[in-house]
């Protein structure tokens, strides 16, 4: 008697997902609680595990959209499958390939496509150490890379040139391609991974990126986004930080970063200018009385914006540890749906990548987003003298339907004040 493997309930309002990867090949013997597949939804990626031990029979291939409750595989507790060779299905590296065919029986093509022809460099173990590192780091399918070494072996240079040529130079409607570009909207793909020559490769957009793309376009179309700029002299914050860095770390067990200052300053400004802490729903203006701040986190799987709850009630240390924890979980793809919902305001730090100035796009339902940038030593005039100060440009994008220029500028100037003079936050002046 076989046991069905079903797509579990994921959360409110989510009815479908994307079967990103089978962690076990068809025909493998699986243990109870062993990860069977990786499921991606709008916001989160989750592992689906085996309820019973037995032989796995895969019914739905990788790259398919699946519904909650759908049967995607069966486990036969009485049968023993083929021995599972790790090399054949190392996690990540082959996620874009069709379900691996058990090596012992290569003619068994139960899935819609047969595996790509085996050749040099096909499985991860046969790659050179540098090539293996690059393939894993960039989540590449080595079978898509042409090897110029002996016997078709893939050299590091081949991967480097593959990565260089990866974004397609397409004058026509651009085919979806794997790219690291942050948040750029791209058309929704229809085809599964298909090799298309040496200069391009195609792979399905991850569920996360598809959703991200849709939402970015949606907000661009519905909100009247306007960006105002200001600059902040970071010397006080930096001095404070370097002065108490050690003590802070000792006392709280977490490093004192810039983010806690920005979150605190934001909360202060939101309190001063409540119009920013609101959003439009239908014909109504909804004003928030909570201070749940979204923090944009860049992961190798895409951009996510986990939320620091009730930031107004958190100490600096609590904010720092909350952010550190959320960022770690984002990288590990273990964020829950709840972690991502309900930000009233978002902070995005493009400075970590070296951005000097940018115009962030709103993260709905929030009506404004603060863009941090890199700190640069620049000459500024203070008391009629030119002095060198560590300066950062700040950008505030806001929904002009709701927030007037006066409010936006006041809000941003308040953030600048709080950062240039952190005592103001303490004294609430």
């Amino acid at each position, binding site marked *: 008697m076989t046991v069905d493997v079903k797509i579990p309930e994921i959360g409110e309002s989510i009815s479908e997902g994307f079967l990103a990867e089978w962690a076990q090949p068809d025909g493998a013997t699986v243990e109870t609680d062993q990860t069977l597949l990786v499921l991606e939804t709008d916001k989160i990626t989750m592992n689906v595990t085996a309820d019973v031990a037995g032989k796995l029979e895969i019914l739905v291939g990788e790259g398919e959209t699946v519904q909650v409750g759908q049967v995607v595989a069966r486990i036969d507790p009485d049968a023993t499958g083929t021995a599972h060779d790790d090399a054949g299905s190392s996690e990540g590296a082959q996620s874009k390939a069709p379900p691996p065919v058990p090596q012992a029986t290569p003619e068994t093509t139960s899935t819609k496509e047969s595996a790509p022809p085996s050749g040099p460099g096909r499985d991860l173990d046969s790659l050179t150490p*540098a090539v293996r590192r690059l393939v894993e780091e960039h989540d590449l399918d080595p079978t898509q890379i042409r090897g*110029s*070494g*002996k016997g078709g*072996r893939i*050299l*590091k*240079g081949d991967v480097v040139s593959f990565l260089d040529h990866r974004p397609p130079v397409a004058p026509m409607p651009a085919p979806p391609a794997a790219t690291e570009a942050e948040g750029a909207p791209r058309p929704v793909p229809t085809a599964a991974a298909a090799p298309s020559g040496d200069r391009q490769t195609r792979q399905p957009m991850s569920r996360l990126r598809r959703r991200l793309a849709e939402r970015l376009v949606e907000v661009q179309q519905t909100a009247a986004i306007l960006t105002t700029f200001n600059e902040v002299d970071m010397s006080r914050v930096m001095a404070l930080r370097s002065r108490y860095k050690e003590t802070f770390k000792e006392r709280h067990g977490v490093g004192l970063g810039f983010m806690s200052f920005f979150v605190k300053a934001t909360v202060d400004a939101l309190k001063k200018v409540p119009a920013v802490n609101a959003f439009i729903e239908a014909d109504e203006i909804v004003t928030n009385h909570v201070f749940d701040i979204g923090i944009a986190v860049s992961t190798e799987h895409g951009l996510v914006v986990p939320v620091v709850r009730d930031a107004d009630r958190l100490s600096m240390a609590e904010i720092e540890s909350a952010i550190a924890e959320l960022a770690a979980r984002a990288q590990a793809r273990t964020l829950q749906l709840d972690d991502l919902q309900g930000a009233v305001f978002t902070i995005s730090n493009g400075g970590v990548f070296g951005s000097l100035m940018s115009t962030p796009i709103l993260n709905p339902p929030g009506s404004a987003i603060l863009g941090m940038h890199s700190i640069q030593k620049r000459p500024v005039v203070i008391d009629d003298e030119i002095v060198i100060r560590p300066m950062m440009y700040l950008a505030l994008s806001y929904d002009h339907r709701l927030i007037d220029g006066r409010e936006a500028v006041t809000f941003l100037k308040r953030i600048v004040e709080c950062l240039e003079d952190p005592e103001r936050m303490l004294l609430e002046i």
Partner: protein
Amino acid sequence: MTTYDLVVIGAGPGGYVCAIRAAQLGLKVALVEKRTTLGGTCLNVGCIPSKALLESSEVFEGIMSRAAEHGVVVGDVGLDLDGLMARKQRIVGELTGGVTALMKKNKVEVITGRGELTAVDRVTVHSDDGATELGATHVCLALGSASVNLPFLPADGKRVVSSTEALSFEHVPEHLVVIGAGAVGLELGSVWRRLGARVTVVEMLPTVTPFADKQMAKALERALADQGMDIRLDTRVTAAKVLKTKVKLNVESAKNGSETLEGDRVLVAVGRRPVTASAGLEEVGVLLEEGGRVAVDDHLRTNLPTVYAIGDLVRGPMLAHKAEDEGVAVAETIAGLPGHVNYDTIPNVVYTDPELAMVGRTEAQLKEAGVPFATGRFMFRPNGRAKSLGAEVGLVKILAHADTDEILGVHMVGPRVSELIAEAVVAMELHASAEDLARTCHAHPTLSEVTREAALAVDKRALHS
């Protein structure tokens, strides 16, 4: 007249290896050699005896100057030069005898005598017993090279000698003057310096080992000078007078002007030239290049389609292992297989102390070719194994392409780098990147860790610097 599929003339490392490989592939092979022992210059009067002497002299010098540092107390230390030479000769005898055994095992017919190409398909062997004609479907010329003489200083085998005689001096010279700071000059200079001679090396060019990367040549020069070798670079020998017990040399340099050097022995080590005379090449119509080497195509074929030439006779560095690989390639080509030599990955080693080893291109060559590259260097000094050996002088330098990270050259000066270079050669043969080398586990504590650190340093992430 017996006809062979292949007649190889010259039983040096190129010739005898060619003969073995051809025999393995089922060809009927004759090997013609004028010496009574096989192995050519390399085994008889080159690489092998010089290594034997280098080792013996190192043991001697080590006991004299380094035993105390190891806490080893020795009594009277003396040198038995005859015993030292006997050991060298025994090693040579074992190896040349081994080659003879290999020929027997592979059923290669060895014919002693001077081989001469008398027609495209004919080799005549001249010996004391007269001349023998051999029919040859294919011929491989592996005649080797001989030391070059200076016109004003002909070698007499006594005061003025070539490397051959310098391997068998009956006494340790008082003052040995070496002309030429290449591998031969520096190695034999080192041998006699360690055994007690004063050694002066005169080199026309501005660096020792001019084929090496400049930085490495400089490092080697400094190390040898520290040991007491008097190295005169940019210095030209302009005249010589051979007296009964000594030789007077006039040398000139921009730095020191004109000087007279007096030595009781002079070793002329200014290079080698291919042996192309007296083998009938011109008569049969084998074309030579400028410089006197035999002209060959990529498959080592001369202008005569069934006549091949290898080793010191043809373009490229005069190295035994290069000749061996060419011998294999020729045998395989004749047998209808794709024979190939990768000239980009031929290592080059100088067996001084510290040793110098290299493969691939130098910084200067890469700059000239306009190839963008990154450099990783690591010294032997912090390496634990080097410290325990008491051999901390030297460094490893890796040059890798700036974009692809492919290793383009590896240069080493230091302890036992003659062995360390093999790793770099394999890596380059497989077109490995510096990162491939850096991500490969190396045993600890070993000298090879220095290679790995140099590979890490290409990406500026050496761990122990």
